């Protein structure tokens, strides 16, 4: 991003794993800075899809965290299945899949 005229100051860096950062430039250039990559966004539908995907990833991650806390006494395990976009929990022979449905 060295070609951007605006050097980003204090607080602009993502400080936690649940933050999304965007940079933009006149007249209408937009880039999303994700954990591992920088994505150039060229349309509003693409932006909406990205927001939807990232929100889903965040929610599934939080579900895993909550599941982990709840299942700790019984040595349960929770993980995020990126391929099927599901949170998966296993404890005492049980398996629970959590999937999010978009209401549009």
């Amino acid at each position: 991003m060295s070609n951007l005229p605006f050097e980003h100051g204090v607080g602009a860096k993502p400080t936690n794993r649940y933050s999304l950062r965007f940079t933009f430039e006149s007249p209408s250039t937009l880039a999303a800075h994700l954990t591992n990559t920088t994505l150039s966004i060229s349309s509003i539908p693409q932006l909406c899809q990205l927001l939807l995907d990232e929100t889903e990833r965040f929610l599934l991650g939080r579900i895993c965290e909550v599941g982990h806390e709840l299942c700790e006494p019984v040595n349960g395990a929770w993980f995020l299945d990126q391929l099927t976009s599901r949170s998966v929990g296993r404890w005492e022979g049980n398996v629970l899949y959590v999937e999010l449905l978009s209401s549009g």
Partner: protein
Amino acid sequence: MFCNLIIAVLRVLLVRGHGYEKEKRLGGSETLRVNLQKSPAATRQPHILQKITDFTQYHVFCRRLKEDLDKTVKTLSEVGIKTLLRFNPAGESSHQIVKLLTENSDRRLGGDASLYMDERYVEPTLRTRCRG
């Protein structure tokens, strides 16, 4: 406020355009050619409306972008996940913005936005800044 800025900048750009034409007429082609060799960018025919259209487009673009980010914040907040948005459409100082709008350069206005899902993970200082 946005319209006031456009009117003010337009005046500057028109005066500059007029100054350029006047110099061309009075100084003749000789002076201009010498200037052109010295620094091509400074003696180039100044744009008048290009900056205004870019600026207007950027204004609409930022508004549209913020709308979508606000929608995400609202949706998450409604289900009990407090989400914060820090939106800064112009990263440059006011002095730099005036320079950018009135000078004959190709530099562009830029900004940034950060969306923090779940404010428990946001540092308190940043939290105040997002709200302020």
